[in-house]
């Protein structure tokens, strides 16, 4: 039962910075979105871990992580709809080529 709280935080830090690295270096919109997923998961882990270790009597972090999962799912659905619409218009989804908006 003895796992130090720091180890959880190290894992979530590595996930967060891997996500940031992917967010900056990828050019494909779907790959950027995958990196955003990594960042959101790292924050959810932190919510749950801090709730469990620091305040085990209340469940704020648990519910924050729950609502975070729901909102991340909604965000992903809308983003993928937008990306598919972009693909239908300009036939690729590279970030360089999306520089004009058509109504």
């Amino acid at each position, binding site marked *: *039962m*003895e*796992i*130090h*709280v*720091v*180890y*959880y*935080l*190290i*894992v979530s*830090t*590595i*996930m967060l*910075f*891997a996500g*940031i*690295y*992917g967010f*900056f*270096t*990828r*050019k*494909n919109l*779907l*790959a950027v*979105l*995958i*990196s955003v*997923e*990594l960042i959101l*998961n790292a924050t959810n882990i932190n919510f*749950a*871990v801090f709730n*469990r*270790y*620091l305040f085990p*009597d209340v*469940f704020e972090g*648990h*519910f924050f*992580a*729950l*609502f975070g*999962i*729901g909102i*991340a*799912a*909604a965000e*992903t*659905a*809308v983003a*993928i*709809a937008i*990306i*598919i*619409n972009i*693909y239908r218009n300009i036939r*690729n*989804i590279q970030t360089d080529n999306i520089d004009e908006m058509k109504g």
Partner: protein
Amino acid sequence: MDITLQQLVFYVVAILMSVFSVMTVTSGSILRSATYLLFVLFGTAAIYFILGYTFLGAVQLMVYAGGIVVLYVFSILLTNSDKSINQKICKSKLFAVLATVLIGAALVLFLIWTNGFALNAIPECSEIGLKEIGRDLIGMDKYQYVLPFEIVSVLLLACMIGGLLIARKR
């Protein structure tokens, strides 16, 4: 030094999650990258289970592994972006990003390490039951969540309508 089964599971899951999350952002094929993301999400669910939040872990498995990754795979195949992933950014930019990420990670890890959390055991309290979670989600007292619950339901409805409107054929 003897380690318990729970510690062993945690260390294996932690190492796998770190490795796979780095591979997610460095892999050359986007389909493979989505698969590594799936493994990272499984690892996150395993961490929730280790912490004792079984409901949260089940939600993570259902929503992420069951829904979002399938959505990703479908849209990767729809937009046939597997060929275009290998377009790289220029060298100087890559160097700047790498420096930012490494320095940031080192700084955060240093802060965590020197903060001096003295907590090394999961506090002994029984895991929360489904009845309690349900009561907290639709209760109206302090530390109960009926308002965010309803707002999330409206948000999901708006996202569904918005997604249909954006993605439909003209």
